[in-house]
């Protein structure tokens, strides 16, 4: 379980994350939604220790993350940012093999390479494994990064807007992969999504943020609902149920 207590981050005098407390149960997909500037990515960044916090506590499986060695934490929690610009020219396989670093410290043994093989195959990247990242399309590159995270084999996986810049087909593909990782590998996945309908169709629970504050946390039917969405987005969004999925019609 991930537990966040009174977490705050300020830039200057403005609190971008303001006294947020939150519990995320093990297993399942949790989506962070909210308008631009709500503090979703900052919250995710602090939980994954990429962004230093100003106040508050973060516990992963009962341990405060600042008290755990970074190396050990890297075996428990992994994070993927929305922009992954890498200066070095790497093939897909080389990138994925970095996921074993917390275990191998750079000296990969046969077992590590087996993990690499499986992660690549799991993401259906075998035919691209010797291609350089800059020779791939956006969707393929995103899959390569997800494969690296799979290879890191952590219980918790944090993704910052993994659907950014992906077309519909690849977005759905990534969400299906995440669902399978939850069901088959028992992962806990937390992601930031912009499109409420992706959050609605693929999440187990949704966390809504606005102006740095946590305003709602609940199941899909509690959040994807006109009055809750009005509170989050200041917008009236009618909800239709289509094939059992709650879809917000916000285009007009």
């Amino acid at each position: 379980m991930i537990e966040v207590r009174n977490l705050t981050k300020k830039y200057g005098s403005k609190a971008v994350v303001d006294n947020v407390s939150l519990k995320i149960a093990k297993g399942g997909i949790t989506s962070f939604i909210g308008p631009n500037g709500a503090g979703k990515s900052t919250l995710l960044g602090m939980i994954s220790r990429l962004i230093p916090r100003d106040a508050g506590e973060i516990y992963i499986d009962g341990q405060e993350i600042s008290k755990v060695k970074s190396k050990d934490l890297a075996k428990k929690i992994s994070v993927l940012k929305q922009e992954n610009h890498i200066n070095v020219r790497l093939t897909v396989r080389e990138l994925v093999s970095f996921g074993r670093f917390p275990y191998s410290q750079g000296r990969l043994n046969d077992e590590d390479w087996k993990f690499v093989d499986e992660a690549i195959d799991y993401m259906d990247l075998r035919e691209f494994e010797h291609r350089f990242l800059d020779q791939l399309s956006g969707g393929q590159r995103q899959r390569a990064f997800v494969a690296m995270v799979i290879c890191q084999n952590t219980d918790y996986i944090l993704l910052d807007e993994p659907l950014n810049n992906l077309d519909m087909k690849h977005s759905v593909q990534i969400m299906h992969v995440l669902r399978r990782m939850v069901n088959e590998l028992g992962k806990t996945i937390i992601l930031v999504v912009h499109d409420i309908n992706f959050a609605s169709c693929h999440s187990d629970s949704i966390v809504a943020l606005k102006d740095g504050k946590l305003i709602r946390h609940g199941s899909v039917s509690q959040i994807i609902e006109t009055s809750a969405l009005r509170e989050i987005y200041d917008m009236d969004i009618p909800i239709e149920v289509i094939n059992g999925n709650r879809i917000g019609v916000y285009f007009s």
Partner: protein
Amino acid sequence: MQAKPNKEGHATLKQTALGSTGFVSEQPRQNYHVSPQVLWAKLLSLFLLAALCIGLYMTIGVTDWGFALPRRGIKVVAMLLVCFSIAYSTVIFQTVTNNRILTPSIIGFDSVYLLIQTLIIFLFGSMTLIQMSKQTQFVMNVGCMVLFAVLLYSWLFKREGRNLYFLILIGMIFGTFFGSLTTFMQMVMDPNEFTVLQDRMFSSINNVSSDLINISAVLVILTTLYSLRFFKFLDPISLGRDQAINLGIDHSRVVNRCMVVIAIFVSVSTALVGPITFFGLLAANLSYEFMRTYRHSFLVPAATLISIIAIAGGQLLVERVFTFSTSISVIVNFVGGLYFLFLLLKGAKA
């Protein structure tokens, strides 16, 4: 299709997550784009070429072996130290700052060294210094350099939203600023003290400060041993700060230690042969181009060997072909400067 998680919590999968029917061939898969065998072969050929250059440099045109060998020997030892220091510090620097254009000397590390040296003589006078041995002084300079460089540059690189072109600009300005400050102090200095300073400052490959070779060698070896403790972190750090932290690396601690190592290496090379601004850039980038790998255990030796080839080969040319009518740092800076422009223009297009 059902996965069975084993002890490690990792499942054996029979089908891919995207639902394709999977794969048949089970021949061994090549792990790296350039295989280790090829990398070793490349290193070996560089090593042979470097050994050839040094061998020629030591032996060409010798008439009196007893006279020539020790003299050239000292130059060669200095060259080796300088080449290793510059190559290693440049590669580390480019890795921790995630760029392939900036080098410690382009953003003014070596002018900081010269400034510190001048400042010490300016403030305390040459008399105190004359009583001190050159070695003690050198160690003192290195100490100041480490302190100063770490403070200044860790501040510079830890600011948020660091932009490469902003850093080039700041670095150039710092370099020029420290350079002018140095010249200014030399102008107002007592001429006698300036003579003392001049003796220490204007070393070049033809005029190596031989008193410093022993202490430099010790310093380089100790620093290298120290750096081995975090050498393995360099590969993941080249993926960028966020990925490095994700992979469990204490990023800021490693970067700070790298800055210490860089400051020491720059001090050594500047003290021995003076500043050669674009040399590190050339050596590091040629080694990336030639090795085509991201692995530092191959990049650092390759960059060192390439710089030895460049310096020993170049020095051979300067001494035998141009008969000392030009100096190697002029040639290196000319070629390196052109290459720097090329990298900037190429980077701007991408």
